[in-house]
């Protein structure tokens, strides 16, 4: 990688991200896959950084999964999202941050569509009024949660307890960053660093002291692809995409993968189990996989949160090898301890992939 050239490209795609006062929209799939990630982010920005992040229990799914799977038409998705804008307007906020890359892509697509076709926006306004008597303003600024992590990377690194350094070798932790396709491939100007060389996660990992791994299939899709996964007959395509990425990154021996998309996080994590069972191969060291974390989970580890409190036991691939490298102290006995202190049953161990 010619680093100076990349820095020049990144500087062309910088966003002026507002500093405070956000309406936060959760991700429907992320709350199921990695429920700790969003709470952790809110705890960091509210309690560690003192920022104003508002959320409401009346927020719903954006409909992105159904839209991209051809289950609902775009106008339905537009009306759902118009309702979210109405909730933001009612709460008195102008900046919206969404937790999911699919949502971020869809919100951006809809806002751009309304700019080109104002008559369509008028129709959706009428749809929303007919459906629930709500009116809305579009957000003045739309951000993705990884933009927020990027924005606050230096204030967070000032509070770092465990920087991204391998305590055994003294070298930086080797980080693979994976950006969800819908973050900047649809609208390069909406992403920090553009579509080809997005800087949003690289900047975060570098601020924490990590070393970014550049590998041939770095910009390849994780493989989720909606219908690729949702239709079982196509599921092999999804798996093959992930396989291609892992085969490409394996020689560079990454310590951790960070993503900004709930789907990417899930599939890069879970497919490692499926690849181990079907292909007989694991990609990490000593029989473990390569841990896959969201940007918020990585930030939380660096800032000293307990790995089990932030829900890292919900990941298929064990995070213990990364915790050991970073020198994070944890209690293995508490990995499967419930919130009420009750010991939960251990998940069944896979044939090949070590999970604990």
């Amino acid at each position, binding site marked *: 990688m010619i680093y100076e050239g990349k820095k020049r490209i990144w500087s062309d795609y910088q966003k002026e991200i507002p500093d405070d006062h956000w309406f936060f929209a959760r991700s429907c799939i992320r709350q199921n896959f990695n429920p700790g990630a969003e709470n952790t982010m809110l705890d960091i920005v509210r309690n560690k950084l003192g920022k104003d992040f508002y959320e409401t229990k009346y927020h719903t799914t954006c409909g992105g999964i159904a839209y991209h799977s051809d289950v609902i038409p775009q106008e339905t998705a537009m009306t759902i999202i118009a309702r979210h804008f109405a909730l933001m307007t009612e709460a008195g906020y102008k900046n919206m941050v969404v937790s999911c890359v699919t949502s971020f892509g869809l919100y951006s697509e809809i806002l751009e569509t309304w700019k080109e076709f104002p008559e369509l926006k008028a129709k959706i306004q009428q749809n929303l009024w007919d459906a629930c008597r709500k009116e809305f303003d579009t957000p003045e600024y739309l951000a993705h949660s990884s933009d927020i992590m990027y924005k606050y990377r230096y204030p967070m690194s000032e509070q770092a307890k465990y920087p991204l350094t391998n305590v055994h070798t003294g070298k930086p932790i080797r980080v693979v960053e994976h950006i969800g396709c819908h973050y900047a491939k649809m609208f390069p100007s909406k992403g920090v660093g553009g579509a080809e060389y997005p800087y949003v996660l690289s900047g975060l990992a570098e601020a924490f002291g990590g070393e970014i791994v550049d590998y041939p299939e770095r910009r390849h899709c994780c493989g989720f692809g909606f219908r690729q996964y949702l239709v*079982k007959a196509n*599921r*092999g395509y999804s*798996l*093959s995409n992930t*396989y291609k990425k892992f085969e490409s990154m394996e020689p560079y021996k990454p310590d951790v993968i960070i993503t900004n998309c709930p789907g990417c996080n899930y599939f890069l994590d879970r497919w490692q189990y499926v690849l181990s*069972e*079907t292909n007989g191969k694991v990609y990490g060291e000593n029989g473990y996989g390569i841990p896959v974390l969201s940007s918020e989970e990585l930030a939380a580890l660096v800032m000293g949160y307990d790995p089990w409190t932030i829900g890292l036991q919900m990941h298929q691939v064990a995070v213990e090898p990364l915790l050991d490298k970073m020198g994070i102290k944890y209690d293995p006995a508490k990995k499967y301890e419930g919130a009420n202190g009750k010991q939960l049953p251990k998940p069944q161990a896979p*044939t090949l992939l070590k999970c604990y």
Partner: protein
Amino acid sequence: MIDFGYGLTPSSAIDLDKMDRTHFEILIRREPDVLKCMACGSCAASCTAGVYTTMNLRKGILLLSRGQEKSALEQFRSCMLCGKCQLVCPRGINTRNLILSILKTYSIQ
């Protein structure tokens, strides 16, 4: 091993470092016209054998140029050397001669 009901699909990526073009280079020396092909597909569209078999000269040339001989050569057995492809080729390639040269170069009976 667990059968999940789906699995890896074979990759169609061409590894340029592992590609063996030895035979194709011999073919180029024997029949330089093969490089004129622009893969328009007129030959395949007019091919009588192609209606009933996998014969497709455009695809065959492409596969041979990538060193994928195994996939390419079987189809040439179906060619009847009728020469209709030669009549329609916009680059004026002597396709009958090309096919005979392919058979000779790759030792196909």
